[in-house]
Every structure is written in C-alpha cells, then in structure tokens.
C-alpha cells in the first residue's frame, strides 16, 4: 500500500496520465458552477486537498466555502501537500513521499494540469512553496543515494515547468517548506527520518535522527540558521509548519520514541532565537499518540491550529500569548486551513469538512462528499494580499 507510487508501472503511470489528460479539471459535480467565470481574487474562498475515493482512486478536490466539491483532478497516485501561488492563479499538488510526480493546476483557466516528474535520483517529499513573485517553485526532495534533503528549484515562468537547480537543506527527510515573511528566506522542516526507496517508507535511523528547522536564503541556498530541539527530543520528527503574525514558525512534530512518553509536540521557532516548546494539558496530550498531522494559522496569524488525527483532536493556541486555547474533537481530522480571521476549515478521513470558529462550540459539519477520504492537508487557495 505504501509503495503505491513506486509500484506504478510505466504503463500504469501513462494510463493514469491518460486519465488525467482525459478528465477535464472541472468535471465537478452537477452542483458546481464553472470556476472559469471566477477570478482568483473575487473573494469567494476556495480550498484544495488531496483525497482518496472509495474506489481507490486518488486526486485533488477543490471545494468552496460551503464544502461543496467544485472540481476534481485525478492524480496518478496518492497526493499530499499543495503549494499555492500568492496571487491564487495556480497551485502545485505534490505526490506523497517518496513520490515522483507533481501536478500544476491553473484552476481559473481552461487548461489541462501540467505533470512534473522528479529528476532521476530525486523523489518529491510531499510539500513545496512558491517564490513571492510566483516565478519559482521550491519543492522538498530527497537525494536518497546520499541520504540528504534538497530543495529542488523550478522555473514556472515559461510554458513548461523546468528544474533549474537545487539547494541542500542540511538535513535528512525534509518535509514542509514555507517562504518566510521577508519573501526571501526559505524555512524547511528537516524531519530527520532517513528512508530509502528500496524500503518504501521504512524508517532507517530512529536512534540517530536529528530533526531541525533550517532557515535558508532562497537566492543563494546559504543556511542562515538552523535549530534542533534538545537532545531528549531528538526523536520528535519536525514535519509541518505555519507562520504566525510575528513571523515565527509553529512546528508540529511526530514522536518516534517510546509511546509511553508524552513529549511536547508543537514548537515555536525563529531564525535568531532558540526554539520553545508549547504545553498541551496532560489529559489532552496523553490521547494524541504523539502525532501532529497539520499546522495552520488563521488569517491574522494570531491563532494557531494543529491537528492530531490519531487522537481525533484539533488543538488551538493564541500565537501572541502562547496560551493553549482548547481542543475540538474531529474524528480522523487532519487537514486544517484558515478561512478568515476567526475560523478554520478542517477536513477528515471520513469525508467531512468542518467549520470551527470557537474551540468551545461543536464543530459545524458543512459537507461530507460521499466516498471521499480527505488526505492529510487542506489549503486555502485565496490570493494573499501583499503585506
């Protein structure tokens, strides 16, 4: 199951590509009005997430603010993260790690998705981000022969996407990547876990793993600073991130040590300060199975949400005070996206899209498209206004 992408034969892959080419991006439900008449900036929030359908097919769904499916884009294998251009005009959906495909989607144009395949010796590692001007795409990748993480750099300005170079992330198993608030720094979470395509997703170095968050110059690839956690937390794989209003990075981890321990799971990182860990109340923390799935900030960057799918909880913090605000039970909830200043949309493996405005109130289930299992992450596709 975990080798789904690896075992896709050339023929199977081309067949999948054929279906990708044959299915118009906007083969959405009868409910959907065409997206083509919309503008990226017309103010209606749209969201995208990878999914698995009950028939086993994988794809990316675009939903509106009521959770209604507007478009489905078939993928050749299981998807994961999505990089959204700041102007909202396009996004890139990445294969789940270790993957060999990524798909460029221009949701407001009558254009087929463009497939990108990873370079020989490189695998996409699930996430990516755009440069501020949208010209470049940065994709985390694994150089498995050398067991080192890299950021692949892609030129998106021409007709076809071209890989023009790479930077080292100075770590193993890079996962999430963000563009910093200065629009120049790249922030990479080096999860620290070594895998090899011959062994699928098997973890090869749990005793020696050393996860870190690296701050890199996107122009030169220089490592500006790099922070790990204290030695007793070296098995907390740092994986998913969100920026708060102060430009600090909230990082959610997955603990690979003893399941009997209850370590902190969310840390706050900055380029020039030592990381801090947050406190989750014991009663909540003990039920999370030491696993954070996604991290997101609200529109203002002052509330942070982190999902814990194995515990069926989504947790909230005040970014400014660091105060823990509470948790909301969402069974198998994992994808979290900002909606606006006061609310988050949370997607789950049972197909639901839930609106959370206040951790003290029950989540409002907006929609549950039958047969859809939403995959790990949910993204707001709206244009980000220049700061």
């Amino acid at each position, binding site marked *: 199951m975990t080798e789904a992408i690896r075992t896709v034969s050339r023929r199977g892959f081309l067949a999948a590509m054929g279906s990708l080419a044959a299915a118009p991006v906007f083969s959405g439900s009868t409910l959907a009005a065409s997206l083509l008449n919309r503008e990226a900036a017309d103010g209606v929030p749209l969201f995208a997430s990878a999914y698995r359908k*009950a*028939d*086993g097919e994988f794809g990316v769904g675009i939903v509106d603010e009521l959770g209604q499916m507007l478009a489905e884009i078939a993928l050749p294998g299981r998807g994961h993260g999505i990089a959204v251009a700041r102007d909202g005009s396009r996004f890139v959906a990445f294969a789940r790690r270790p993957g060999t495909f990524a798909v460029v989607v221009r949701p407001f144009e009558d254009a087929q998705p463009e497939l990108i395949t990873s370079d020989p010796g490189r695998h996409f590692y699930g996430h990516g981000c755009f440069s501020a001007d949208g010209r470049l795409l940065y994709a985390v990748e694994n150089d498995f022969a050398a067991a080192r993480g890299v950021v692949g750099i892609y030129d998106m300005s021409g007709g076809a996407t071209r890989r023009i170079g790479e930077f080292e992330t100075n770590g193993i198993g890079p996962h999430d990547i963000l563009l910093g608030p200065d629009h120049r720094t790249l922030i990479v979470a080096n999860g620290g876990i070594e895998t090899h395509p011959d062994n699928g997703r098997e973890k090869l170095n749990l005793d020696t793993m050393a996860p870190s968050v690296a701050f890199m110059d996107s122009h030169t690839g220089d490592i500006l600073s790099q922070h790990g956690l204290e030695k007793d937390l070296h098995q907390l794989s740092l994986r998913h991130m969100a920026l708060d209003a102060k430009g600090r990075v909230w990082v959610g981890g997955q603990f690979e040590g003893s399941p009997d321990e209850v370590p902190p799971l969310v840390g706050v990182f900055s380029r020039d300060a030592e990381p801090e860990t947050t406190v989750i109340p014991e009663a909540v923390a003990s039920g999370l199975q030491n696993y954070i*799935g996604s991290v997101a900030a609200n529109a203002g960057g002052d509330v942070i949400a982190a999902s814990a799918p194995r515990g069926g909880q989504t947790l909230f913090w005040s970014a400014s005070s660091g105060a823990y605000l509470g948790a909301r039970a969402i069974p198998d909830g*994992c994808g979290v996206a900002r909606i606006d200043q006061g609310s988050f949309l949370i997607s789950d493996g049972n197909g639901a899209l839930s609106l959370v405005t206040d951790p003290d*109130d029950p989540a409002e289930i907006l929609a*549950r498209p039958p047969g859809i299992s939403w995959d790990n992450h949910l993204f707001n596709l709206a244009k980000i206004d220049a700061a």
Partner: protein
Amino acid sequence: MRLWVFLAAAVFFATPSPAADFNPPLERLIANYIRPATAEFAASVEKLPGAVTGICADNRPETAEAFRSAYSGSLQAFSRIQFLRFGPLLEDDRLSRLAFLPDPRGIVQRQIRKIYAQKDPGVGSAESLKDKSVAVQGFPALQLIAFDKDSDVVLGRPGADKDYTCGYALAIALNLAAIAVEVDADWADPDGYSALLLSGGPQNERYRTSQEAMEDVFNALVTGLIIVRDQDLLPALGASATKAKANRLPFSRSGNSILYLSGELQSIQNAVASLGLEAVTPSDFQWIFNALGFEFGNAQTLLSELTPPLRQTFKDDDAYSRISVLAITVKSIRDTMALELAGALELAGGFNALDGD
C-alpha cells in the same frame, strides 16, 4: 522444560498471526443485511409516486395520511442503507441525489427557492430532474415542498403553485424510485460490487486481502455512527439548552427525526450482527458484543421516550437531556467499535490516523 517454554514463546511471538479470512463475515453481511435492506428500500420507495399522485388528484385527510406514511416508510428504508457508503450508493452521485446531507447552510432551500422563482420546468419530470443539482433531487427536497414548518402535509393543497409542486414532487418520487431500483439491482448482481468486495486477494486491485475489504466496510459503519452524533445530534444540541435548535435534527420538518435516527442506529446494529464477527474475535474480546448490544439498546430506549415531532416537543419535558445522553451513548458505541472491536480484529482505522505523514 524452561528452555522449551522459552522457545515456544519465541516462535509464538515471531510468527505473525495469520490474517483472518473476512470473506465469510462479508458474505453474511451482503446476504443477510445489505441485499434485504436494499430490496426493502426499493419496495418502499416504489409506493411513493402513487402516494404523490393520490394526494395531488384528491386532497383529503386519507390521501394526506397515505402520503405521510409513504414518505416516512421510504425514509425509514433509506435510513437503513444510507451508511453503506461504498460501491453502488456512490455510483452516479446516488447517495447525494437521494439525500443531500448535511446541509447546515440551507443549500436545498436556497436552490428550491430559485427554482420556484423561475418556475424552472426542469424539475417537472424525473428524466430532467436527474440532471439538476443533486441538492434538489431527493428526500430533503421532497420534504421541503411537501411539508410545512409545523410538519403538516401541504402537498396537493389548493394554491397557485399546486400543479407545479405536484409535478416536482412526482418527479422526485420517481427519481428516488429509479435510484432505489438501481441500488438494489447493483447489490443483487453477483458479478457486481459484491464480487469485488468478496474477492480480496493479490489479483484484486482494490482489495489486496479480505481484511482490506472488511476495513472499508467497518470504517463505513464507524462513519455511520460519527454521522449520527457529530452531524445529526450535536448541531441540534448546540453549546447549551438555550442554544438548541430542534429544526437542525435530520428530517425534523416532516416529523421524522426519531424514526430516522432510530433507523440509522438500528441498521448499524443489525449490520454488525449480520457480520457474525464473534466467530473471528478472540475469546478475551467477546464481551464487546454484549457491550454493544447493551449500548445500542440504551440508545433505542432513549429514542422511544421521545415524542414526535421533535420540533414541537423539544422544549418539553426531558427531550434535551435525553438527546444529550443519546449523543454520549452513540459516542460510546463508536469508541467500542472503533477502538475495542477494531483493535480485537486488528483492523486499521481512519485514513489519516492510520497512515499519515
């Protein structure tokens, strides 16, 4: 002797327990639950078009009662299949076309208002209706045009829109009946989805083992329980009794909330029973089945103590606290299923929890 014990233990722990064969339980589910339930659904909904024609041709208390009864009967039969969120119910958007749920923001109402404003002729026949929005095709749409806020039947009453509404209602009834026939036929087909479900193995692209097929079915049962609590009950309960909204209960407008909730829970209980999982569950975990029976029984008792229509009775007596206890009971059933029983059977749980990244 001690060495022998040690070796035996080592062998015992080194050998993974052979994966259970889940085909017999799945065969029992299909034969003893799914096929009878989908056949009953088709038979119930078949009566709906006639009931619409009856009340529209001759509106009097008897025909109104006959329509109410046909609607409730169809809905009850639907409540017993709606949790089968795999295979035939997913083809051609059937489940969404049968019932566009959840709908907390009133999409059905908004779209129907638009249809009436334009007197859209597209809702006048089952053939054209099936190409309209899924939201305006099913049980919630029929409820909205056939019942008023006080749960009275208004279909067939004299008025400017009478003929239009009667035409639309008949189109929905025929559309529902057609979908029900398709679902029944697809499940009855020995070469259809049931064959896929029962052929888990290396040659099966979808299910590599019978356990994978069982996991899909099991997770659908758990999702059915999540829907009852998180989607059907909690929004109506709100944050407190003063914020409770009875009209958020499923099918409250037609006075069918209790019937529908009871059907949802009874059907999941019956589906679990039909699997006969006792046969593949280790003896240490046999208690689970008694626990489930006890908790499902408690849930039905709570529902039987409520008086329909809940829109009218929700503020009375102990309805709020009973439904609160019901929500807790359903959570407990879900935990018993998703944690205890799934654990005992070594079934994988949620998509993200199982295998995230």
